[in-house]
């Protein structure tokens, strides 16, 4: 069920029958594109594996897969440094991996193992990898957006030109705290990049059933910050927009907002494609799969003869092998000790 609503403002960006062609990569650094292709592929294969293992009953914790949305995190992360501070939400495997987080700690985390990036205390919905700049992802919708603004405040106090990133969704934009956070960032001119992955859905509900317009960046404009709305399935568009917004932030021009239009291929939670079918995602989904961000980059590289079929196959095999190896290790890894339950409530352990 979607609805005719007064302000359909995304134009072709929300039309799955547009923006299907291979990306225009001429003049771009091929090495980098190949690396980014691999990054996207890795994210996809990891999430597919997670999906399979949920189906198999090996993974119990709720997993929100972002398959189809890989270009956003990869395109954004390209412009971040380890000193930048990133926050995510419930659908953040891609944010974690694109920043350089390891596959093994992710899978171990999803299994609740001690080697997990959150020591097994969080599962899929709570990822933590400060070494790569990821301060945290948690599943309360919009819960980390104001935290990112605080990290931006910290960055300004530190001096230098580090920034903070808040990833959130079109649904999260309905939480009041996002608007408070945007106002704080704008009033205080803080170095924070708001990245809204607009996948048109908040669980089963299309944005037309939740907001008067489909374009989320209008809120950022109201807060008088630089905002761009782009095709989130186009790695180059994400990357270019991020480059320009991040440069402005690092120059001290205050917060900026990136709206990346994309689409998730699986249900809201778990691996099933048909979970949300009751709300007619069914027909659109097939179309959106043709707007695959990975295929569009791979096609471009192929057309430019920068990617041979066998290189592609080898890349995929290597990725799959990496994922499988990590999975086997994670599966065999130990759980946290029972004492973890009380020891990590307060700093310094249960004794205190």
């Amino acid at each position, binding site marked *: 069920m979607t609805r005719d609503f007064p302000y359909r403002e995304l134009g072709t960006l929300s039309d799955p029958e547009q923006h299907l062609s291979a990306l225009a990569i001429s003049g771009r650094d091929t090495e980098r594109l190949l690396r980014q292709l691999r990054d996207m592929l890795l994210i996809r294969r990891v999430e597919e594996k997670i999906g399979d293992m949920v189906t198999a009953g090996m993974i119990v914790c709720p997993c929100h897969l972002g398959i189809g949305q890989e270009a956003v995190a990869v395109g954004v992360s390209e412009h971040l440094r380890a000193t930048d501070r990133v926050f995510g939400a419930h659908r953040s495997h891609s944010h974690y991996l694109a920043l350089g987080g390891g596959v093994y700690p992710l899978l171990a985390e999803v299994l609740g193992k001690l080697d997990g990036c959150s020591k097994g205390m969080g*599962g899929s*919905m709570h990822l933590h990898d400060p070494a790569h700049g990821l301060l945290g992802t948690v599943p*309360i919708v919009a819960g980390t957006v104001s935290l990112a603004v605080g990290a931006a405040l910290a960055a300004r106090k530190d001096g230098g030109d580090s920034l903070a990133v808040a990833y959130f969704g079109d649904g999260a934009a309905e939480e*009041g705290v996002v608007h408070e956070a945007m106002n704080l960032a704008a009033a205080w001119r803080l170095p924070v990049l708001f990245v809204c992955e607009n996948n048109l859905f908040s*669980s*089963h509900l299309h944005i037309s059933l939740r907001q008067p317009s489909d374009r989320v960046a209008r809120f950022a404009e109201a807060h008088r910050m630089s905002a761009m709305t782009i095709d989130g399935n186009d790695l180059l568009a994400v990357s270019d927009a991020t480059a320009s917004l991040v440069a402005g932030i690092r120059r001290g021009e205050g917060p900026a907002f990136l709206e990346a239009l994309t689409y998730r291929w699986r249900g809201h939670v778990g691996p099933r494609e048909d979970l949300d079918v009751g709300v007619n995602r069914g027909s659109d989904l097939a179309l959106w799969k043709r707007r695959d961000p990975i295929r569009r980059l791979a096609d471009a590289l192929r057309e430019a003869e920068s990617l041979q079929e066998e290189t592609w196959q080898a890349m995929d095999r290597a990725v799959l092998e990496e994922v499988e190896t990590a999975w086997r290790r994670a599966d065999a890894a130990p*759980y946290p000790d029972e004492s973890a*339950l009380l020891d990590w*409530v307060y700093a310094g352990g249960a004794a205190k």
Partner: protein
Amino acid sequence: MTRMNYGTAIRAAFMHLLDHHPEVFVIGQGLWAKWYVGNSMTDLDKLYGVDRIMDSPVSESACTGAAVGASLCGYRPIVVHPRVDFMLYAMDAMVNQAAKWSHMVGGQAHPAVTIRGIVNRGGEQGAQHSQALHAWFAHVPGLRVVMPATPADARDLLIASVLCDDPVLYIDDRWLYDLEDDLPPVVERPLELEGPELLRDGSDITLVGSSYTTQQCLAAANGLAERGISAAVVDLRVINPLRAEPIIASVRKTGRLLAVDGGWRTCGLAGEVIARVAEAVHPAELRALPRRLTLPDAPAPTSKPLERIYYTLVDDIVTAAADLVKEAAR
């Protein structure tokens, strides 16, 4: 008699309310989804239309406030929060506005709103998707708080909550949804008359529970009976305002109290039960120190082995109760 489970009993309550009370409507997240609130609201949108079953943006605060506002205009809205955890965004509407409205305006208006908060935990969901904060709400004057433990109560207390003129927080627990029972036809009863009930009498110890822990207490009472221990079970049902008389009466008889609660320990509901008993039952009538079983004072973990030790099991109740009975009689 109709066979229902706890989930379908909730659905039956919605149907009764929507059929007979045109001023009832529902706002909440996931009401048009097949999977959001278990089997407790299946297809209500199709049966009653999307104007009365309103799925909503992710705006807990405004949705709750809107329901409060509509309740001041003659409606009886129900707001559904698929998890108590999400409701933390709605504290102002619930606690500053709804709970205080009648008092603030000199009893001239009453927000007849029902807030349904679902406890949904386990399954490695972790700290932000597992909370049971009923003790908080029992602390708030003006807010009635209801925690049904049986399919019959799941249905009838929801109806009573919605028909009550006060703001009511109705808390149901997804761990109970499959519990079955034979239910008589609906009779509308005023919520004001509802309170804790002795579900099972006994002479050695009083077990007090609410919602899921009541069912655990009943199971534990069976286990204790096998060991020759006669346990009474009191189901709290309505925890604010809390009428402690049935608990006190039972403890006077058994001399022992084990309060079992699905929330945290400090300043929790089990502590309140102990306090009520301690204030009222003369020490000479007590055969053992009162005790409580609660969650440990820690956020919910995700990891399997930690989840296992985090939640109270029926065996824990049996063991604790048996220990209390064994304690040197005085």
